[in-house]
């Protein structure tokens, strides 16, 4: 009789292409042959996320928005993985993956419209800030409820697979599904992996393991060899990757996508290791549960943006002047869209009642009418000025 003790097994390795100093460690995947313009664009996308994050965090502090979540330290996972996707692929996000949106072509104007919930917001003023979504980019709108998107990603991938069986002319597509290591404790995660494995769904599950779920450190979140070991248990091809290594994340995702679509299709689990440099959100002060020094050390030690920058500088395709110019121009663009979006009207009041059902129900019509009468009776009690169309939209 032998009981297997997972502590006696070797931990799954962490895949890297470049080290913290920007030196190539996996020569077989040396990124040197990639065109410089492409790499610079990816780098700029990471910078965009990081600059926008700082501006929006401050904007919240100034009371100009109610909420924000930065993704500092995790830009490489989002941009790197998204750079390996096809525009047709479908994405389900958690909330710390603005890099996926930027990489897929969500414009700063679109981001700001969501953050300010103005009349151009795809979510029609329904959602809190950072809950992006875009049908054009095949990204489903983010839900605050953790992990619910994970089994949906299994089902969505099954749908894509079925559609190709019905019509082999549609291009092969995968579903990319993002979530945190905390969310991976939810039943939904386990159900998702199990059903994706049994139904051979082309889903790539990308777990951002940043060490924290609000205050809860990963040591209290799970035992065993991280989230990656879960994949093994469900019979899923799994890899652990260094989330600070842009090229490694990208190559892993390219390979994962390829494998997911091979033969009868199959799910893949990627565990991308990083560190949540920031507070959880603007509502959190993480120094209530972790030492400032720990964060400072992490920041100094490694970061996806600096790591790629070091590599680019070694290659001679980037320097201090280019960096300055890039930062200044991105900042300018962000601030321009910020100012424009903040000024715009809010979606019409009617939007409060829309999209509950495909058509507004008779009950909701009654409620709209009652609300209109209430506001007409007490015009001074309600400020309609921010809303496009004022009271008229309640017709």
């Amino acid at each position, binding site marked *: 009789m032998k009981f297997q003790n997972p502590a006696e097994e070797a931990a799954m390795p962490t895949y890297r292409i470049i080290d913290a100093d920007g030196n190539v460690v996996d020569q077989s995947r040396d990124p040197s042959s990639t065109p410089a313009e492409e790499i610079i664009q990816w780098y700029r996308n990471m910078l965009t996320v990081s600059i926008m994050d700082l501006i929006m965090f401050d904007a919240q502090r100034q009371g100009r928005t*109610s909420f924000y979540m930065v993704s500092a330290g995790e830009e490489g996972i989002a941009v790197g993985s998204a750079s390996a996707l096809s525009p047709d692929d479908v994405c389900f996000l958690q909330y710390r993956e603005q890099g996926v949106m930027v990489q897929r072509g969500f414009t700063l104007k679109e981001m700001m419209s969501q953050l300010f919930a103005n009349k151009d917001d795809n979510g029609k003023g329904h959602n809190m800030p950072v809950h992006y979504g875009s049908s054009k980019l095949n990204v489903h709108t983010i839900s605050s409820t953790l992990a619910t998107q994970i089994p949906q990603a299994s089902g969505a991938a099954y749908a894509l697979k079925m559609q190709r069986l019905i019509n082999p002319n549609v291009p092969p597509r995968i579903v990319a599904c993002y979530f945190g290591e905390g969310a991976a404790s939810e039943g939904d995660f386990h159900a998702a992996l199990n059903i994706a494995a049994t139904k051979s769904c082309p889903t790539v599950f990308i777990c951002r393991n940043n060490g924290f779920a609000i205050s809860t450190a990963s040591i209290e979140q799970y035992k065993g060899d991280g989230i990656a070991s879960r994949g093994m248990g469900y019979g899923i091809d799994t890899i652990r990757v260094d989330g600070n290594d842009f090229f490694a994340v990208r190559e892993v995702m390219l390979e994962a996508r390829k494998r997911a679509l091979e033969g009868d299709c199959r799910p893949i689990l990627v565990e991308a290791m990083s560190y949540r440099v920031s507070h959880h959100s603007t509502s959190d002060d993480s120094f209530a549960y972790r030492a400032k020094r720990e964060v400072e050390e992490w920041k100094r030690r490694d970061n996806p943006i600096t790591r790629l920058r070091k590599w680019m500088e070694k290659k001679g395709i980037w320097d201090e002047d280019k960096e300055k110019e890039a930062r200044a121009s991105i900042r300018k663009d962000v601030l321009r869209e910020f100012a424009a979006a903040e000024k715009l009207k809010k979606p019409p009041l009617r939007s409060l009642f829309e999209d509950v059902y495909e058509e507004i129900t008779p009950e909701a019509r009654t409620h709209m009418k009652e609300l209109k009468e209430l506001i007409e009776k007490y015009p001074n009690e309600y400020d309609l000025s921010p809303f496009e169309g004022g009271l008229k939209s309640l017709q």
Partner: protein
Amino acid sequence: MFSCRRNTRTVFSKLLRSTSQCRSASQASTAARLNRPVDFKKTPILHQTQNSARAAFGLSQDAPVDWVNLHGAINTTLHHALKTDESVLLFGEDVAFGGVFRCTKGLADEFGAARVFNTPLTEQGIVGFAIGCAAEGMRPVAEIQFADYVYPAFDQLVNEAAKFRYREGSTGGNCGGMVVRMPCGSVGHGALYHSQSPEALFTHIPGLRVIIPRSPSQAKGLLTAAILNCNDPVIFMEPKILYRAAEEFVPRDAYTLPLDKAEVVKKGKDLTIISYGQPLYLCSAAIEALEKEIKGLSVELIDLRAIYPWDRATVMESVQKTGRAIVVHESNYNAGVGAEVAASIQEGAFLRLEAPVARVTSWGTHHGFIFEKFHIPDITSKHIGSSVSITRC
């Protein structure tokens, strides 16, 4: 709108910050006369003086009382429960560092990680775990971080906690002693997933007790009873907007309040308003405005406290007297608690009714981020609700 002592160590402090300090997703009208922020320093719902608190709890003139807010009162209650009964356990997401609303602050330090601890992020796990603890004789207090996130635990609550005793029959097995606490309700910018009040989903389930306190002193008595005395599973919903906003004098010594009794908060003779939790403050303000406007009018206000099983007798007695009733709650109109209360009044006091029972609730839609002020009941809508029901007679 709410008190806003800035505490940078408070997670989700944002969710409780005043509308004047930062932009709420939907703006209050500056010209508003009725829809003014609730003045928590004046509202009669809270014990503004030491003697008011002593009188309410039948205490002597020198009984010690403390000025505390809702999260403070909950914290003291949890402290007392952990101290007096070693079978009490406390756990949930981020509970160890004090919880995102600070209700469990300091408790892990004092009572140790074996009794007060973080769980992995799994609500079905948290509630299932609590049921198991209770079934084996402990008194677990489980925290769900937001009521909006209780649904993964729905199966455990509806099929397990609620039916445990029934299933066990004469074995006597049960999961009494389990309390599931959760912050609920709107705060100004919580949108779809940080604003919900799902009590009606649980009041449909025999076997669960659903309690919503209106104030720190009520929370203390009700939560103490739920944890230490009650042998049925309790869902304890805490209106999170009140955590810091609602401050009052609270008796220092431990006490309990009944888990099946409504309370007449204000006496009246012409109209009964039935509510619970946060809207009671709005009801009180609306009544004040209405009684000023209509000379001689007197409105009775009832706090249900126990949302299920609920105290029909107190409500019926009041409506028999007044002949008119309005039910007010923040959660949706459709199949809400208001429907149950209105139907019961219709059954129990039909011949005495002088107007249809009215409901003032959120509409039958979701909690849209920038539309909160137009969605949830406010003083104006209750004002109008009252007028409608009065003029109809």
